[in-house]
């Protein structure tokens, strides 16, 4: 059992939870994730470890409510418990000291990229960060990332804040300024990662993406998280989650993410109906 010690609403559908998990808090490194299983009936879902406090024995998770499991987690309050948390899983990010990197976080990807920005910063690298959101109210972690980065560019699709446009527009601008960039780390929705890879492939810049396939065990036992990278089958939970973006078969990943659309819809509708009756909270 893992107790929630703090809760913070970061944006409309985005919640930050600080939760007790002392062993994982001590071990985890940037780029790693946990599998969370809220209760007996729940799914097991992967969530990135956004931060940890080994002294307090806690992890920070940042969760975007997109379906039943994430919305259910986002309704928890300080004092509530999560049944199972497994981790730290996946390979830590390879942090090249003294390098110049561009870190891009789109949407909830900002939560995934944030610990990586910090790790680069702590290894004396220079980080330019680009964080993007559809609109200003969905933007998360701007201050935290800004505090760690040499330069931070915010983009919104609708122009309600920062630069109007996509993260790729900001990236193109940086690359065309002739800035030396050793590596780009791009984390966000699949279409965003794919678009970034297109830009960097043309510019010949190494690009790392963090993939988000559907997972079950998170330990390499089921193969449900498989993606093709450079023509080889990889299990994202153990071989990743980060891969060379220029080698990833995004088409297959996109299709596989839609495996359970029908079920997800049914689950969410059922949950919101039930919840509307019992707890009275807004969906």
């Amino acid at each position, binding site marked *: 059992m893992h107790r929630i010690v703090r809760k913070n609403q970061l944006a409309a559908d985005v919640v930050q939870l600080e939760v007790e998990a002392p*062993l*994982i808090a001590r*071990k985890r490194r940037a780029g790693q994730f946990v599998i969370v*299983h809220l209760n007996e*009936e*729940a*799914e*097991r879902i992967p969530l990135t470890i956004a931060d940890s406090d080994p002294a307090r024995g806690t992890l920070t998770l940042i969760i975007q409510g997109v379906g*039943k*499991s994430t919305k259910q987690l986002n309704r928890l309050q300080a004092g509530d418990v999560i*049944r*199972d*948390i*497994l*981790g*730290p*899983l996946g390979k830590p990010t390879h942090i090249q000291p003294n390098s110049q990197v561009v870190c891009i976080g789109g949407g909830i990807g900002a939560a995934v990229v944030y610990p990586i920005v910090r790790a680069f910063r702590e290894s004396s690298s220079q980080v330019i960060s680009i964080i993007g959101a559809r609109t200003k109210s969905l933007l998360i972690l701007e201050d935290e990332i800004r505090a760690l980065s040499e330069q931070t560019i915010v983009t919104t699709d609708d122009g309600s804040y920062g630069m109007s446009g996509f993260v790729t527009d900001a990236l193109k601008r940086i690359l065309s300024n002739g800035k030396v960039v050793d590596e780009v780390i791009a984390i966000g929705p699949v279409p965003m990662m794919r678009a970034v890879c297109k830009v960097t492939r043309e510019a010949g810049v190494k690009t790392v993406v963090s993939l988000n396939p559907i997972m*079950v*065990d998170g*330990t*390499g*036992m*089921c*193969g*449900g998280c*498989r*993606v*093709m990278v450079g023509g080889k*089958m990889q299990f994202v939970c*153990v071989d990743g989650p980060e891969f060379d973006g220029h080698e990833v078969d995004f088409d*297959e990943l996109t*299709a*596989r993410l*839609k*495996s*359970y659309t029908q*079920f*997800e819809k*049914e*689950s969410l509708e*059922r949950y919101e109906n039930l919840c509307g009756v019992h707890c009275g909270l807004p969906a």
Partner: protein
Amino acid sequence: MAKKIGSKTKTPMPCQEARPRARNFSEVALGYSVEMAVAEANRCIECKNRPCIAGCPVEIDIPGFIKAVAENRFVDAAHILKSKNSLPAICGRVCPQEEQCEKVCTLGVKFEPVGVGRVERFVADWARENLADETPQKQPPNGKRVAVVGSGPAGLTVAGDLIQMGYQVTIFEALHKAGGVLVYGIPEFRLPKSIVQNEIDYLLHMGVELQTNVVIGKSLTLDELLSEEGFDAVFIGTGAGLPSFMKIPGINLIGVYSANEYLTRSNLMKAYRFPEYDTPLIRAKNVAVVGGGNTAMDSVRTALRLGADHAYLIYRRSRNEMPARHEEIEHAEEEGVQFHLLTNPVEIFGNERGGVRGMRCQRMELGEPDDSGRRRPVPVPGSEFEVEVDTVVMAVGQGANPVLTSTAPNLKTNKWGNIVADPETCATSIPGVFAGGDIVSGGATVILAMGAGRKAARSIHAYLSDPERSSQTEIQEAVMQG
């Protein structure tokens, strides 16, 4: 003195009827009544050589417990069983008896062998219902701590044996429930989960500590168990949990599962009870399962129970070579599974949404024997045909999961990634570290994993009782060279 021969055939096992059971997840075989068990026990002719004992990997005194049943002494029967096999309710259900104890039964030379497994199951179930949990005498605590990695049959056996010898035992399990394949792989309709839970509760009751959600190699390393965590010895029973996928076009389409994923979703995550449980599993109309072992049989029967109109089993050899338990093959046939034997898939086709639309297969014929001694299947030219399916499950073998071994550089593994361990002592290349079960042997059976667990417990005890650890050095050297 050998007894006279009674019935030539086994007392039939009462089962749920094939039609309704193919659509529910309740147990198929219902178990013997007292009368049936006694009748079956009376079929044992108490032959002089008692070959059945050697046929059982843990050498249960089979004539002993059978005789006790024949004489209505069920408490005695339970004690005889438990003294050699800590999980008889499980083995009675899932052992491949026809390859083990029953294969060599003297009665089986002319007639059907004694239904040893069925009687064993009866005794175990009877004991569970009628005997209060007796806590066996435990040796006084000896202050030494042993870590057990993995809670499958191998790990559970090691834990049960060592706790009785006075050790402090902690099991580390990666998943959120203990039991290994017994909970995530073998379905409810073949092995009710309450039976496995009962065995685990019993271990906890005896004082074994269980830490779920700890994956050794990630949450903690093997080194850390021995150093920071202060364990005096470690047993590794992590199983063969790495799925294999055929290298054919279409393998990553939506609706192509490994058997591990299909069964884990259904058994561990209870997808068959969606939406009460949150984990989904595609409810396909036509399902093809590729393989011929227990895993394939469990998957294809699960597909029927999830509502498939057609469930096909695609296997590249013939029925005789199928490694699955005979009873499961028969049950699958009765339930309406359609067998495509001597058949192998060559391609899976997709639809416009990335889902599975069909599969192309080719016919095979049996050629010369291969390494396994079975005749090698070879494709028949021009024999390709298509089946219309919307889900494909790959049950074509399991490898060794590298999560632990890849972070333990001094732990010797073979070319398939299995841990190298001494067959007699389960000692590995690292002093104080023992291994057994599927992670050493490759995918095998529950009873063999338990047998290895029992051996390992004995040698862990020997190792920790010997202050010089001298016996160990030689074995270690043998392991390193072997």
